[in-house]
C-alpha cells in the first residue's frame, strides 16, 4: 500500500488539489464501516432466497440470480407503470407484491435496506446511469 506521505508528495508534485492528504480516516474506521456494509449486504443475500418476504414460496433469486437485472445504477428512473420517476425500493416492493404475492416493506425497513445493499454490491463497478433503461 502507498503511504499517506507518498500520496501527499505525489499530489503536490502534480500540483493537483490534495483530495485525501490530511486528516485521513483511520484504518479501524474504514474497516468497521465496510464490515457494517458487508453484514447488511449478506443479510440482503439471505433475504434474496427467503420465501418469508412473500406468501407463495417464490424468492427473488429465482428470477434475479446474483441480483442480475436489478440495475440499481439506473435509479431514480421513470417506470411506466408507476407513472413517474421512482426509486429502487419501489420496484423491489413491486416484485414483492406481484411475483411473491407479499406485502410492501417500508422504505426504511431494515430488510428493504438490506435487499438494496445486496443488489448494489453485486452491481458494483458499473457506472451510474440514472434514468437509463
Amino acid at each position, binding site marked *: 500500500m502507498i503511504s499517506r506521505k507518498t500520496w501527499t508528495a505525489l499530489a503536490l508534485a502534480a500540483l493537483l488539489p490534495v483530495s485525501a492528504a490530511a486528516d485521513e480516516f483511520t484504518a479501524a474506521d474504514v474497516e468497521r464501516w465496510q464490515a457494517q456494509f458487508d453484514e447488511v449486504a449478506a443479510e440482503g443475500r439471505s433475504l434474496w*432466497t427467503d420465501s418469508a418476504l412473500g406468501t407463495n414460496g417464490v424468492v427473488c433469486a*429465482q428470477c434475479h*440470480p446474483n441480483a*442480475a*437485472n436489478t440495475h440499481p445504477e439506473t435509479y431514480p428512473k421513470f417506470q*411506466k407503470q408507476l407513472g413517474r420517476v421512482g426509486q429502487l425500493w419501489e420496484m423491489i416492493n413491486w416484485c414483492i407484491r*406481484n411475483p411473491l404475492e407479499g406485502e410492501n416493506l417500508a422504505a426504511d425497513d431494515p430488510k428493504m435496506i438490506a435487499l438494496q445493499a445486496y443488489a448494489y454490491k453485486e452491481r458494483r463497478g458499473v457506472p451510474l446511469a440514472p434514468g437509463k433503461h
Partner: protein
Amino acid sequence: MNGRRDFIKAASTGVIAGMLPVSVVRLSHAAPENDFTFAYISDAHIQHIKGNQFVRNWDRGLIRAVAEANLLEPKPDFVMFGGDLAQLGSKPELDHGAEILSALKYKTHMVMGEHDYYLDLGEYWSDLYGDQYYSFDHKGVHFVVLNSILTYDDWTFNRWETPERRMSEMAGLDNPNGSPFMVGATQLNWLKKDLSKVKKDTPVVVFSHSPLQKIYKGWNFWTEDADDVQKLLGKFDKVNVIYGHVHQIQYNQIGRIAFTSVMSTAWPWPYPQSYAQAESHLPVLTVPMNRADPFDERDATGWQFVDVNTGRVDLSFNLYSNDNRKVAFNADKGHPEDVSYPQIEIAPQRHY
C-alpha cells in the same frame, strides 16, 4: 413502451391460432415426405404452496403452452417437454404438472431437469414417465434423450443430511453450494453403444436439459463432460442439440453440432453477461433478447415449434408477449441464425 407489447393484445382477442408459427420451411434438396414438425415446451417449474395451491403465475405459463400447442396446424408429430416440470421435485408438483400436460393431444416425450430430480433422485418422475435416458427413431431422424443434470456422487450422496436440503441447494441457480451438471460415465457408454448403430449421414437430434456446452459455470449453464458428449456426436454429418434450463434464447455451432436453447413457460433469466461480477460466456452466435418487463407476467416466456427438414431443426419461438423469433439452420453459412437478424454476421466458435 414499444411494439413488442402489442402482440399480447392481439393474442388475447382470440386470434392465437393465426399468430402461431406454422410454416414448414422446405429446402430444395429435402425429401418432402420426411419433413415433420414437433413442439417443444420446457421449464414449467410448477411450484407447490400448500394443500391444492400452486403458484398461479407458473401454472398459467404451462396451461397456455399446452392450449396453444393443441391448436397447431399442421399437427406436430409429437411434443417434447424439456425438463424442470416441478420446482422442488415433489409429488404434488410432478402430479399437478402431469395433469396439465395430460391435456396435450399428442404423444409426449420427457426430459429430466434438476428440479425434477434432486428430491428423490428421479424416482417419482420415473414412475410417471419411465426411462431417464433413451432414444427413438422418427421419419429417418435418430432422437436421443439424455439426463444431463447428474453430478458428482459425493455431492449427491454424501453431502446433505436430507433429500429436501439437497433439492433446495440444487434449485438455487446462483447458489455457490451447487454442483456442476454432468451426463456421467454410465450414460456416455450407453450413448456410444446407441450411436454405433446409427449411420454417419443419419440426422441426429439430441435433447438435454443442460446445454451440453460450457457457457457459464456460476449459474450451471454448463455440462461438466460436454466435451465427451460433443466428441461422440461430432462424427455425424448433421447433429442438433436442443436444451432447456437457461430460460432464454441461445444458439451456437461447434463443429458439426448446432445448438439451440428453448424458453421457459415460467420466467425468463437474464443473460450471464448481465451479471457485472462475472466474465461473459454467451455463445457468440446469439442475438440476445431484450430485458423482460416485470409488469408483464408473461414477458420473455414462451414455447417453441420445431420444423425438421433436411435433418436440421428450425426453431420458431412462440413468445407470449414479445415478437416471435425464428432460429433456423443456414445451410450456406453452416450454422443456426435468427432469420430476422441475418445481417448480424458472426462467425461460429470452434470450441467452448
